[in-house]
């Protein structure tokens, strides 16, 4: 009988693993199954551009099937529960039970606005919007078309969030958008964050904090939201500070999939505990985690899922062959940060090294200046969409290396 590799989630990480493992495993010996509830693949980095009319929904969606190899069995169903001690997963559709030999968890992270009192009350999607979902970003685009100004508050509810630079990019793009529309003088932009500054890493925080100030965006630090008062249009923190808004753009609490919680496999945010270097589950030998679903202390980003791919697929194969997994994942993350006016910034870091200034050498396209605004970084970000659909999720080689390099960095 064939052995089964089961992949839960066919977003960025799950799709890459399916492609890589289909090419690596002997089809006579292995059956690969991928399960996802949604037939549509969303290019989530594109959500950022939707509110400002740079992209629309059609630019960020494609059928998932286009990216999954035919050798892989694809099932579209909700996952009811994972039973890791029995090595099986129960699906909602047809109540199918799938026993597995190896399991890859790639169910990602999602916003949970209900976690904050009052967030989804009367103002939700009227003057309170998220841009972390396609619907939220599209509704916000609609709203902005006719908005005539006031106070816009951008608020991160709680860390960690996926793509931790996206809220900053949103602020920069908003500043640009309102200038283009000749109404910047009628919009006050406030950036309220639970962090002590603009970002999580010291050098980048200084650089990004400066940029916020230069663009006339006011930062409110250490702001931990407790509730939204829809009537008075104010957000209130646990230490009882208040910020009133006309338009609230929220980045609600991000959590792992509900099914992780239901299955008793997650931490308090439903993220699966993993070894941060091998990406193996801390509890079950035959379970591996890629992308946002795990609790590795690095950024939750598509680029990170990509840097994890080699470690996950190599270690799966090693484990199948009776070898020890290798601690090869170094936490590598890199993000292009849109700063408006056709410019962008690039940061590159890992578990040990914070983002540094310098140049990022990328054969054929780069170099990209690090921690510094430039046009080439903006084009890098836009080119990323093409690379995402055509190279990244198909598991094809990308012109970047998995382990972080210090080449070109000024420490």
């Amino acid at each position: 009988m064939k052995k089964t590799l089961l992949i839960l989630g066919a977003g960025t990480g799950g799709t890459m693993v399916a492609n890589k493992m289909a090419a690596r495993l002997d089809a006579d010996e292995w059956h690969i199954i991928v399960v996802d509830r949604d037939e549509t693949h969303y290019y989530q980095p594109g959500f950022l551009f939707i509110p400002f009319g740079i992209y629309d929904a059609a630019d960020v969606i494609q059928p998932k099937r286009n990216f999954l190899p035919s050798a892989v069995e694809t099932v579209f169903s909700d996952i009811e529960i994972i039973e890791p001690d029995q090595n099986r997963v129960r699906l909602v559709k047809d109540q199918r039970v799938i026993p597995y030999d190896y399991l890859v968890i790639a169910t990602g992270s999602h916003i949970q606005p209900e976690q904050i009192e009052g967030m989804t009350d009367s103002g939700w999607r009227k003057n309170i919007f998220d841009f972390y979902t396609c619907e939220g970003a599209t509704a916000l685009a609609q709203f902005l078309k006719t908005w005539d100004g006031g106070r816009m508050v951008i608020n991160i509810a709680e860390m960690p969030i996926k793509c931790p630079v996206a809220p900053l990019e949103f602020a920069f793009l908003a500043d640009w958008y309102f200038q283009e529309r000749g109404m910047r003088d009628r919009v006050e932009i406030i950036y309220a964050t639970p962090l002590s500054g603009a970002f999580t890493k010291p050098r980048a925080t200084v650089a990004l904090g400066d940029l916020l100030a230069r663009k006339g965006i006011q930062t409110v630090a250490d702001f931990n939201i407790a509730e939204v008062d829809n009537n008075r249009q104010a957000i209130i923190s646990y230490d009882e500070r208040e910020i009133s808004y006309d338009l609230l753009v929220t980045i609600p609490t991000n959590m792992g999939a509900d099914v992780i919680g239901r299955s008793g496999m997650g931490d308090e945010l439903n993220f699966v505990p993993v070894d941060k270097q091998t990406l193996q589950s801390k509890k079950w030998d035959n379970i591996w985690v890629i992308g946002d679903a795990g609790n590795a202390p690095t950024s939750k980003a598509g680029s990170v899922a990509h840097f994890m791919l080699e470690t996950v697929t190599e270690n799966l194969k090693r484990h199948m062959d009776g070898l020890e997994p290798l601690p090869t994942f170094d936490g590598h993350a890199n993000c292009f940060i849109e700063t408006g006016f056709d410019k962008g910034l690039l940061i590159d870091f890992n578990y040990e090294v914070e983002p540094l200034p310098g140049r990022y050498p990328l054969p054929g396209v780069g170099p990209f200046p690090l921690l510094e605004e430039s046009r080439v970084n903006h084009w890098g970000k836009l080119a990323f969409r093409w690379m995402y659909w055509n190279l990244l999720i198909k598991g094809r080689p990308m012109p970047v290396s998995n382990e972080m390099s210090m080449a070109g960095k000024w420490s």
Partner: protein
Amino acid sequence: MSAQNLSILDTLAFNDEGYMTDRTQWTEEVANAIAEDEGITLTERHWVVIHFARKVFAETKDSPTLRQITKQTDVSMKEMYQLFPNGPAKKAAMIAGLPKPTGCI
């Protein structure tokens, strides 16, 4: 701040951000001294959090996040902000002699 407390802190090693670098040196007396330095007088409720944080660290090698604390003890978010103003999870870890929580990246 009393001269006595100052002298305890003076004998210990801290990193730039004020977290202890040698956890074996931590005692309840040290916790009291760090807290006082931060303007906090420890009560029974603070100790619920400190003991919980140390238990989590012993098991996972990570300081607990705010959410972990409020989910797994009877201390609410609101109370955490009253007990440890300005960054409760960070303050609790600092007083418990633990490293800064890695929760935010």
